[in-house]
């Protein structure tokens, strides 16, 4: 269950301090060797078969309801977007040939001419308008409705699409890269949300919900340097062992969510390699800041110093990740604050903050389920062990996976103020903060309300001076990290296993899994 929008632009491998080089080692040690050997000349042809650990019969074709890797990859295989996030994190024109704004409030997107849908219908500005409007309005069920709520008007102007916002926002083009907002064919101003038609690299041949999808190369695809495979097959394989078996026996070429424990065995087989891509995705433990004892920042700080972050990265992620400093903004973000004072496991400091709160010991309960993230239950147990040395008695309440997001997360019954969560990370700082840290936001899982933070958030959105903007985002990260109510111990890498029969470009996007879902059009047969 992913939340909308995306991770990382401009991933910078050289940074220091809190990361202790873990992610940098990941990038240098795991990605580069593969890419130097596998960066062969691109060739056309072949079938690319992907085994994905998601997918169910209830999956919808409607992009407004997409939420997991299967539908995301399937969507990317058949659709194009206004703007693409390149592997280097930079924005690249796709259906929008160019875009500009004089004041940050009114944006003009020039629509590429000569592109057609699989049905043969030309892509027009009207289609783009209808595709955006699908996520707006009272009767929209789209999950990105809140994200696009700042849009007051979308209209076609010749071959241009003009988007008007209620307040200036320099990050609007990033919004248009959201995987929920593909360009769909429309009629009379309405898109057909349940069509398999699109203007993307592959034409759908068959789709069995929750089982498999087969697609053939779009012969009229407008990009000449993309979509190398003749055919794409997406298979839903929920069982981790079955997924691994399928890769080993050559039934599929790429799988996601590789269990760290099996990586050594897989590599020794010599048929596949592991790709471990650092991004902004992170795991965390939100605390309901409205509820005692979490309403006291001293208690929150005590808890933040009472867990061993490095041990969690090593054990829970099997080393495929990096230590995080309670900061939802990741190293792949533009304004990542790398100089922040790192929090290490320090029981004495935790005790100190407990005393500041007037306590000598503390009893808390953490509600965890592996639905939040794989390993959440173990992470809770580790947290509980390390917290004991600081005088914190943490009870680990293992709750059912089923119904986790509706009954536990966001503390709907007032009984689960301290739980586990995960976030896919966002391309721009504003999205992450607006989605989960702004006062009153639907997904503000810690119900955190910090006046200074909220003020900065609005200000930073329309600030044009790059240095000032950076300063504001640094201050916000400082606030979230040291006064916020979410413990974020680690950034998790995207870990996938790829058959040696497939080649990848040198740089793989840290923006979402599977090369930003675009492995289908960016990779090729070795």
């Amino acid at each position, binding site marked *: 269950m992913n939340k909308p929008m995306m991770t990382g632009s401009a991933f910078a491998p050289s940074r220091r301090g809190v990361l202790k080089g873990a992610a940098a080692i990941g990038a240098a040690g795991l990605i580069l060797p593969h890419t130097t050997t596998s960066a062969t000349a691109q060739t056309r042809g072949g079938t690319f078969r992907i085994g994905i650990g998601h997918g169910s019969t209830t999956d919808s074709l409607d992009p407004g309801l997409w939420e997991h890797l299967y539908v995301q990859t399937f969507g990317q295989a058949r659709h194009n977007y206004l703007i693409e996030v390149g592997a280097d994190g930079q924005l690249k024109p796709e259906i929008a040939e160019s875009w500009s704004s004089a004041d940050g409030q009114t944006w003009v997107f020039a629509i590429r001419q000569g592109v057609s849908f699989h049905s043969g219908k030309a892509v027009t500005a009207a289609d783009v308008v209808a595709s955006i409007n699908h996520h707006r309005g009272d009767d929209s069920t789209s999950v990105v409705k809140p994200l696009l709520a700042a849009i007051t008007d979308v209209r076609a102007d010749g071959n241009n699409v003009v988007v008007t916002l209620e307040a200036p926002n320099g990050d609007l083009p990033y919004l248009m890269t959201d995987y929920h907002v593909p360009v769909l064919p429309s009629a009379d101003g309405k898109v057909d949300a349940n069509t398999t038609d699109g203007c993307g690299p592959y034409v759908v041949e068959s789709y069995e919900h929750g089982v498999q999808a087969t697609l053939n190369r779009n012969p009229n695809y407008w990009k000449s340097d993309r979509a190398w495979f003749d055919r794409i097959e997406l298979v839903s394989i929920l069982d981790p062992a079955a997924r691994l078996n399928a890769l080993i026996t050559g039934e599929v070429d790429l799988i996601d969510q590789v269990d760290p424990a099996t990586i050594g065995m897989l590599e020794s087989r010599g048929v596949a390699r592991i790709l471990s891509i650092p991004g902004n995705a992170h795991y965390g433990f939100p605390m309901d800041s409205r509820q005692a004892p979490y309403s006291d920042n001293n208690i929150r700080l005590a808890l933040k110093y009472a867990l061993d972050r490095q041990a969690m990265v090593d054990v829970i992620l099997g080393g495929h990740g990096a230590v995080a400093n309670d900061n939802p903004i990741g190293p792949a973000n533009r304004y990542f604050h790398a100089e922040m004072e790192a929090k290490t496991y320090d029981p004495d400091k935790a005790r100190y903050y407990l005393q500041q709160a007037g306590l000598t010991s503390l009893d808390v309960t953490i509600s965890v389920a592996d639905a939040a993230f794989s390993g959440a239950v173990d992470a809770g147990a580790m947290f509980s062990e390390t917290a004991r040395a600081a005088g914190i008695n943490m009870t680990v309440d293992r709750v059912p996976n089923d119904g986790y997001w*509706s009954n536990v997360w966001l503390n709907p019954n007032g009984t689960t103020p301290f739980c586990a969560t995960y976030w896919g990370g966002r391309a721009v700082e504003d999205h992450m903060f607006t989605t989960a840290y702004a006062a009153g936001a639907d997904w503000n899982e810690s119900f955190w309300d910090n006046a200074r933070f909220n003020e900065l958030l609005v200000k930073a959105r329309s600030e044009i001076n790059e240095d000032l903007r950076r300063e504001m985002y640094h201050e916000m990260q400082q606030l979230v990290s040291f006064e916020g109510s979410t413990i974020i111990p680690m950034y998790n890498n995207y870990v996938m296993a790829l058959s040696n029969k497939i080649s990848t470009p040198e740089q793989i996007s840290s923006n979402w899994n599977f090369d930003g879902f675009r492995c289908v059009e960016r990779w090729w047969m070795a």
Partner: protein
Amino acid sequence: MIATRIALGIGLLFIVSVVIFGATELLPGDLANELLGQSATPETLAALREQLGLNDPAPVRYWNWLTGALTGDFGVSMANGRPIADLIGARLGNTVFLALYAAALSVPISLILGVLAALWRNSIFDRAANAGALTAISFPEFFVAYILVLWLAQTGLFPSMVRINPTTTFGDRLYMTFLPALTLMLVVTAHMMRMTRAAIINLMASPYIEMARLKGMSPLRIVLRHALPNALAPIINVIALNLAYLITGVVVVEVVFVYPGLGQLMVDAVSNRDIAVVQAVALIFAAAYVALNLLADVLSTITNPRLMHRR
């Protein structure tokens, strides 16, 4: 008598449908919540609930569904708006195919093994067959499945997963589904084999068998001609039970071999709160159980002249 049994079966199905409906009502969360997942906001939830008709009271939804089901229309999936008949159709076919395949492998083998084990009671063969069958049934299904994958799939003999397309030929299908069918065979054989063996051994002590033996008949002929027909009723019953299990209880095997059957559909639907699909599949499972037990009753009546020609 058969008519009464069918009427009873239908009554039973009706009760089951009420229970199914009640049970799905008790699940935490609702479909709109599950569909939107972590992304649910009060606004989008309300809009989606309205669209899906989740705001109707429970009895109304039950009545609408039941009347639809009676006319063969299970309605549309609440989750993706596709007709449930379409959703179930292909998967029901897959499930029945796998069940029949497994039955075609296991029924003859367990009957033959059972008869031979009874014939050579307490011999090495009897002990080996019993030990082997009991060992296979004692392992959890997924373990048997993984062992088969390790031995037969990773060596390249058989595919580790099943991918059925509309273009798949019957031969390919048999080949691809061999491992799941073999797994199921190993799981169900013990039950049927031991029931066959026990039923025959039980009869071997009867006076008429003694008589046949005194007449100088060969042991094989005694078993096949005289003991087996009288042992059919319990054997038929245990075969019917195992067939019902093969249709309704193979979700683990489906998951391991990525087999698109009804079991996975059911699990999917439960975790997504797609109540309409859960109810339809549960009803099909219940119907399979009732129908197979009915069939077993009828067949054991037919094989027993005392019941057939009752005065």
